[in-house]
């Protein structure tokens, strides 16, 4: 019979908190970098120079078809073997950023494309040039389209940051595994862990929804 004993976890409260902190740090940093990468890739895919378009498309296609774990191992173990040593933290950040950048590029593309073409026509008719049109007419409505998908991507990134534990990065998942080994109270440990992640992802979704509604009164 399975008995539950959550009190066994109380001595590890601070470790769990620390793990949450590391998870948060890695997630935010990686997402910021991923946005930059994604923007570059998006602009690259729409560039008028063919080689730029090709490189950007290859980046997006390759990432979408291989697991993030492979990217992470490639960076941490593969490059490490050749002397380019990444700390677990930076290997995780790099892998997460590279991986999510490709998906964000697609999100940016779809978001800006969804802006009604009538608005572009009106801007052209008023004499606005292409860059001006993007800056004043396409950007804000496009961002509004992008926010739900980008929020979703951030949540996925945060959940996927748990993969960093495989290279011994002390995030929440890594600490949970350590606590599991120490206490052997598997159900309690992973239930608490799951609950923590669930609360985090729900909170982010709620916050983004609220922020979006406040920002976009139009």
């Amino acid at each position, binding site marked *: 019979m399975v008995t539950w004993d959550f009190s066994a976890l109380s001595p590890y409260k601070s470790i769990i908190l620390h793990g949450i902190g590391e998870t948060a740090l890695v997630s935010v940093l990686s997402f910021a970098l991923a946005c930059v990468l994604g923007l570059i890739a998006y602009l690259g895919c729409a560039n008028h120079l063919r080689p730029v378009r090709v490189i950007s498309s290859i980046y997006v296609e390759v990432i979408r078809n291989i697991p993030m774990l492979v990217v992470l191992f490639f960076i941490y173990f*593969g490059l490490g073997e050749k002397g380019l040593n990444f700390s677990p933290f930076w290997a995780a950040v790099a892998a997460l950023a590279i991986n999510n950048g490709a998906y964000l590029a697609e999100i940016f593309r779809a978001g800006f494309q969804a802006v009604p073409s009538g608005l572009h026509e009106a801007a052209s008719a008023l004499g606005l040039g292409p860059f001006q049109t993007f800056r004043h007419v396409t950007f804000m409505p496009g961002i509004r389209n992008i926010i739900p998908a980008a929020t979703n991507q951030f949540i996925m990134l945060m959940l996927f940051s748990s993969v960093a534990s*495989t290279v011994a990065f002390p995030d929440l998942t890594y600490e949970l595994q350590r606590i599991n080994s120490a206490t052997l109270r*598997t159900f309690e440990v992973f239930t608490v862990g799951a609950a923590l992640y669930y609360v985090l992802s729900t909170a982010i979704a709620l916050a983004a929804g609220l922020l979006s509604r406040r920002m976009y009164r139009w």
Partner: protein
Amino acid sequence: MSIFHYTDSLLRAAVMTLKLCAFGAVAGTAWGLVVGLLRASSFRPLRWLAALYTSVLRGVPILIVLLFTYYGLPLAMPNLRFSAYICGAIGLTLFVGAYVAEAVRGGLESVPTGQTEAAQALGLSNFQRLRLVMLPQAVRVIVPPWIGILLALVKETSLVSVVGLVELTRAGRVVGQESNNTLAAFALVALVYFVICWPIGQFGRWYEHRLAASGLRTVHEPAVSNLLGEDAEVPTGGAA
């Protein structure tokens, strides 16, 4: 040793990956279908439970689910022996099921309410209505996100390596260490994944083109932000 001496072990590991995919795809889709239909059930506790399941499984990392199953199943049923493969397969099934359930829910919602009313007016039972009227129409809308889920599944099998299963990614690690050429090993591994995934993605795109041509708008993937019940209007990205 040249990396190509190890193609044998890599291919065997690839087979293991495909086995996981097949199990996860079939079992996950079936399970997801059940849960998705339960969410449309007229029995409130069932509806609520299915909703909770879907919501929770989509709000926690796949790794946690895998670890939970790997450590938890043997504890819950100490008389049975659980291999890493079985634990991984069950974990993947539970995870995929939640996303399929969400896709099914989205598909059913896309069927115009007039259809439900017509079916009810004709005297069909709830189950008949679902089976004969709603699902056939919902399937078209469910397929694109479902393909996205399968694509993600192939990549998620790599995480089962964490519980010790020698699938493609772990094999890459081992081969890399033995051949002292981790870079080449993982490049090869990446190539195999690409070869498996790319056709799936292309099929998905072709299917969506066909759908768009027939005038149907598609939602690419069940968004996690659906925790609030809002659908992303724009194609979302994906997991690793």
